[in-house]
């Protein structure tokens, strides 16, 4: 009786274990693939230009991108701007521009004009002002200290 039980148990175990192990192997092998820069750009462009994307997802994508060690490519920036237009949030678009400018780091003098040149048609089409037009390239208002409030 015990032997029969053990045998059926073993066969049951085998049938459940084998697919699991192959699945594990498939997942583990994913670590080996490296995403190229073009694929990365395309992925985020697709993410932002998806129909029905909401402001939560846009913010999530932008926060993720601006937390990475990279400068978003003009295509991603444009897709982000258009996404902000679709959810009717101009503050989001302006903040996104600021964030992308900030990502240029110490290369602002060379990289930012290039980015601006590439995205200017989109900015004009959507009516998003540049930071220079808003005067946000320099501090505008001072904040009262919390100790004085």
């Amino acid at each position: 009786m015990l032997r029969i039980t053990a045998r059926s148990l073993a066969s049951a175990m085998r049938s459940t274990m084998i697919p699991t192990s192959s699945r594990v192997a498939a997942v583990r092998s994913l670590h080996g693939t490296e995403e190229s820069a073009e694929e990365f750009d395309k992925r985020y462009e697709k993410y932002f230009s998806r129909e029905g994307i909401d402001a939560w997802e846009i913010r999530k994508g932008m926060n993720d991108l601006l937390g990475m060690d990279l400068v978003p490519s003009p295509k991603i920036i444009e897709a982000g701007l258009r996404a902000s237009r679709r959810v009717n949030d101009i503050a989001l678009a302006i903040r996104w521009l600021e964030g992308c400018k900030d990502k240029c780091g110490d290369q602002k003098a060379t990289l930012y004009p290039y980015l601006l040149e590439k995205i200017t048609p989109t900015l004009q089409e959507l009516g998003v002002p540049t930071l220079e037009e808003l005067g946000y390239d320099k501090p505008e208002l001072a904040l009262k200290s919390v100790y004085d409030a």
Partner: protein
Amino acid sequence: MSALRLVVPRMPPSYVAWKMGRRFASGGGDGVRLMVGDREVVGYGINGRPIYFDRSDFPFPAIRYRTVTPEVCALREKELGDWKTLSIEDKKQLYRHSFCQTFAEFQYFSPDWKLALGLPLWLLAIACGITVFMKTTVYKYTPDTLEEDRQSAQLRRMIHLQMNPVTGVSSQWCYNTNKWK
């Protein structure tokens, strides 16, 4: 980096305390949510809590900075249309409704370094003062045993007794030549 700035409620503190207490007592409450007041929650935020802060590596916090007012509602209505019809002032107002400070503002070099440098220097100066005071007044009279000949006599006795002969003071002394090794 800018400091984490919590949104200050505009309700009387006693009311907030009562409501928070009530919420916590009933279980599953959240005081932060109450402090948000009328502000729109527009995202997940950094940890799922509706708090506002300005950070360059996380520029979109979970809530809008200002509460909803009729003027802002009118502007938001206008925002639904073509953005080219919005004036620069409108755009700025919409931005300030969502965010407290621009990047240029919260990254501006603040004079906090003066305090950060000055305070430790003051503490160092006070410590030096205490040291000088102790040296000149408190420790003016040392015990007799700290005198030169007393100390050398003690060392001689230690070598005589072969104290600590493996790694210590006697291991440094050669007993054949009566000299330091």
